[in-house]
């Protein structure tokens, strides 16, 4: 066996799969960058909870972010918590308009299944959250989710 092998010249390393590897990397980076669909202008650290549920249909969820503006926007908007809808800062009375737009983008049959997810910073005060909640009630968007992360320990 050993003798037989030695007679063959060692084949050159095939580089034909190199483009595939590169494409793979390309795809990887393309996809991971797409994931962040909105540019967060507010700092959000969601509170922790134990009794959390997963949101079922991601396409039917509209996000409302609440938190204090990030470093680069501090000069203009200060540090008080603000609401962000899509890509811009908003005031509570723009929530209704935002929900209407979100509804218009979906099929009519799916509208009752739509959920609003409030991603609010744990440092935020309830005042601003309550304002948003009242606006949501006004436009009958009653399914609400307070985004929170899993907490391991449970109070006993």
């Amino acid at each position, binding site marked *: 066996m050993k003798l037989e092998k030695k007679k063959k010249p060692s084949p050159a390393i095939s580089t*034909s*799969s190199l483009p*595939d*590897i590169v*494409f*793979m990397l390309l*795809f*990887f980076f393309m*996809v*991971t960058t797409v*994931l962040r669909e909105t540019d967060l202008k507010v700092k959000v650290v*969601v*509170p922790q*909870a*134990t*009794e*959390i*549920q*997963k*949101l079922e249909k*991601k396409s039917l*969820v509209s996000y409302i972010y*609440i938190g204090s503006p990030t470093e680069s926007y501090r000069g203009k908007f200060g540090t008080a918590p603000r609401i962000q809808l899509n890509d811009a800062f908003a005031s509570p009375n723009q929530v209704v308009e935002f929900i209407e737009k979100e509804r218009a983008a979906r099929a009519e049959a799916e509208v009752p299944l739509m*959920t609003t*997810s409030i991603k*609010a*910073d*744990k*440092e*935020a*005060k*309830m*005042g601003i*959250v*309550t304002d948003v*909640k*009242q606006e*949501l*009630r*006004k436009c*009958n*968007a*009653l*399914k*609400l*989710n*307070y*985004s*929170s*992360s*899993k907490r391991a320990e*449970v*109070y006993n």
Partner: protein
Amino acid sequence: MRRGRGTPEVNAGSMADIAFLLLIFFLVTTTIDTDKGIAIRLPPMPEENQPENDIRIKERNVLKVLVNANDQLLVNGELLSVKDLKRRTKEFIDNPRKDPNLSESPTKAIISLKNDRGTSYNIYITVHNELKAAYNELREAKAMGDFGKSFDKLNESQQNEIKDYYRQVISEAEPENVAGA
């Protein structure tokens, strides 16, 4: 000229690569971090000309939870720490010793939650979480007692039976513009 040599075999060596590519593509597009959180249902906005709700609820059937701007908890008039809220809530709903100050039966129990505009969001979520945990634990205990199985493993009608017994009623007061922070 080439024909003479016979058609060469189609190279299937890169097939694996293509498959991997697709696999990775789908792996990545199905977003891993699904949004999680506490799901609630808001009450509908009261109609403008709706007559005042005149349903009377016995005082003992309501657990009043008040959170002030300093994140302190007042449960039925007494100061309580968040750590004790779940135990207190469970006691109130279930009322195993038939205390005349606690709810008549779990189906009649109502939890009223009220917060200030200056309450921090963090404590609000924690309180909500504790109330929910109280109900979930009671449901779990009843599932174990009645059916000998965990609540998640029961079929739908059994789950509904337990849900009807421990109806989760967390009513949030209409916001008032009280002292903010």
